[in-house]
C-alpha cells in the first residue's frame, strides 16, 4: 500500500510539516539499507526562489529530520550532471554545501560514482547504469512541484530520472516519458517528498519551449488549413498560447488545482 500525505507549509515550519507528513504515512524503516541518499533537483542553473530547483531550506529540514532519526547512518545528498547544469558548482553557488555540512551529510555527484549495469524490462532501455551508492541506500526523493514543457508536470518521477548518470539527458527527450518510467524501474525511491512551497508553473522550463511556440502555432494553423480538424489544431495553438500565458510562480493550492 502506498500512502500520501499533504501538508500546508512554508519554509519557516517545513521541518514540522515534514515530521507531520511522515507521521501520517507511518515511520521510515530503512530495512536492509545502511545509508540514505537524498536525491535533490539541480536540473537548471536558476536560483532556488524561482522554484526551478530544490530550495536549501527544504533540504535543511529533510536532512535535520533524517539526522535526528538516524544519527549514525551515512546520509548522501545526490544529483547527477545534466545537459544544462553542473551540480558540483550549483551546490556551492546556491548555498547547499553549508546545509549538507551542517547535518554531517556528504555531497555525491552520481555521474562520477561507481555504477553497475542493471537489466530491466524497460519501455525504452534494456538496461540502466545504477550507481552502487543508490543500490545500497534508502532513497529519499526530494523533488519540486513544477511544470515541464514536455511532461507537463515535474515531481518525484521526473526528479528520479535525474539519477541517470549520463550527463546529456536531453538526448532522451524524444522518449522522455518512457525514460522516466525506466529510471524509476531501475532506481525506485523509498520515500518521496514534494516541495510545493514555491511551485513553478508554466511550461517554459526549457528555453526550447519558447522557441517551439511559433512552431506549435504554425502547425495548428497548417493542420486547420489542411484538414479542418478543429480539435487537433486548436490543441496545438492552445499549447503555444499557454507557453506565454502562465506566471512563473503560483500559489501552491492554485497550482494543485490546475493539475
Amino acid at each position: 500500500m502506498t500512502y500520501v500525505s499533504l501538508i500546508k507549509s512554508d519554509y519557516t515550519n517545513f521541518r514540522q510539516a515534514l515530521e507531520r507528513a511522515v507521521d501520517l504515512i507511518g515511520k521510515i524503516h530503512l530495512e536492509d539499507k545502511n545509508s540514505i541518499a537524498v536525491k535533490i533537483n539541480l536540473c537548471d542553473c536558476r536560483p532556488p526562489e524561482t522554484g526551478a530547483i530544490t530550495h536549501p531550506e527544504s533540504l535543511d529540514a529533510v536532512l535535520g529530520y533524517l539526522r535526528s532519526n538516524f544519527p549514525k547512518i551515512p546520509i548522501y545528498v545526490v544529483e547527477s550532471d545534466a545537459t544544462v547544469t553542473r551540480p558540483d558548482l550549483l551546490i556551492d553557488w546556491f548555498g547547499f554545501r553549508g546545509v549538507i555540512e551542517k547535518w554531517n551529510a556528504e555531497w555525491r555527484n552520481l555521474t562520477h560514482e561507481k555504477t553497475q549495469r542493471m537489466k530491466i524490462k524497460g519501455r525504452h532501455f534494456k538496461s540502466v547504469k545504477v550507481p552502487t551508492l543508490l543500490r545500497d541506500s534508502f532513497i529519499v526523493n526530494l523533488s519540486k512541484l513544477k511544470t515541464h514543457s514536455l511532461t507537463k508536470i515535474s515531481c518525484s518521477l521526473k526528479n528520479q530520472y535525474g539519477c541517470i548518470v549520463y550527463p546529456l539527458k536531453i538526448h532522451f527527450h524524444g522518449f522522455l516519458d518512457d525514460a522516466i518510467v525506466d529510471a524509476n524501474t531501475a532506481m525506485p525511491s523509498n520515500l518521496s517528498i514534494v516541495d510545493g512551497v514555491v511551485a513553478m508553473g508554466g511550461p517554459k522550463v526549457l528555453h526550447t519551449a519558447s522557441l517551439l511556440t511559433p512552431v506549435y502555432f504554425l502547425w495548428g494553423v497548417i493542420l486547420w488549413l489542411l484538414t479542418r480538424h478543429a480539435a487537433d489544431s486548436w490543441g496545438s495553438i492552445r499549447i503555444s498560447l499557454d507557453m506565454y500565458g502562465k506566471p512563473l510562480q503560483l500559489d501552491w493550492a492554485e497550482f494543485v488545482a490546475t493539475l
Partner: protein
Amino acid sequence: MQVGVIGAGAIARRGHLPALNSLEGIELIGLADVDNQALRSVSKRFGVEKTYNDYKEMLRTEIDAVIVCVPTQLHSVVVVDAANAGKHVLVEKPLSSTTAEAQEIVAAAKRNAVIITTVQNYRYFPAIQEMYRRLADGRIGRLLSIDGACHTRPPMSWTRGTWLYQFGGVLDDFAPHIFDMACWFANSDIADVHAYGDDYVGNMQCINHALVSVRFENNTLATTSASWLMGTSKVTLGLYGTGGTMMTDIQTNNFVEAHGFSTPLDDLRYVSRKMLNIARLGLSGRLFQGAMQFYPKLLSDFFRSIERKSPPIVSLEESARVVAILDTARAQLRSGRSEVSRPAP
C-alpha cells in the same frame, strides 16, 4: 594554406575544426593542447595528423596561420608568441583579458607584420549585416543609442570547463559580442564606460548580472544588459536614430525597422516574421546552430585577408575597444566604484 589550431576545447570542436575541414585549399596541419586525452580524441575525430602538447613546437613548423582557442586569460601570451613566430592569428573573442595585453598584441602584430583578428561571429547574422547596411544608408538618421541584451544561462551546456566562472563572469561570456557590435555600429572610439553589476546569487564569486553603459567619442550611447540568471536565451540589439529605430532578435535572425510611432501593424510584422524565421530555421536544421553556422564564412574571410594582404573584417583596433570596455567594467565592479572612467586608449 597551412593552418594549426591551439586549444582542443569546445569552441575548437564545435566551430573551428569542422569549418576548417569544410574549406577547400586549407590544410589543417596540427592541433596543440596540454590535455592529452582531448588531443587524442579531437585529432582522431577531425583527422589531424600532428598533435602537440606544447604549442610553441607547432609554431616552429611551416604553418601560415594559427587559430587560438585557449581560455581568454591565456590569449595574449599565445597570440604574441604566434605573431613573433611570424604566424597570422585568428583568436577567439575577446582579444585579451586586459587593455595592457591588447596593447602588447597590437604591438606584436605591427612588429611582425602579421594579421591578427578576433572571432566576432555575431556580425555575420544576416539581420545584423542588413541593419549595418541600412544604418550606413541613413535609413534611421543619426545614430543616437544602441541597446543590447544577452540573457543566457551560464555556459554549462556549452563547455564543462570552469574558466568563465572567474571574476568577469557573464561579462566575459556573451557580452563581448554585444560590445563588438556596439563599437561596429557606433564606429567611434570609446569616451567613457560605466558599469553596474554584482554576484546576485551571493556565492558564485563572479559577475552574473550586469549593466554596462558606453559613451563613444561621437556621442553615441550604448547600453548592454548581461545576465546569467534569467533562465532564458535572449540576445537582442536595438538601434535608435533621429529618423527611426531598428530592433533585432539576433538568434532568430529577425529584425524590424520602424519610423515615427510604432503601430500594431509593425508589431504584427515583427512577430509574424519571427515565427516564419524560426520555422524556416527549424526546417533547415539551423535553429540550434546559432552563430556557429558562420564559422566557415568567418574563416574564409580570415584566410582571404591573408592571401590578399587586405585588412581583416574585425580590425585589431575594434578588438582592443571591446577589451577596453570589458577591462574598465571589470575594474569598476571589482573596486565597487561606479564613477565614470575613461578607458586607456
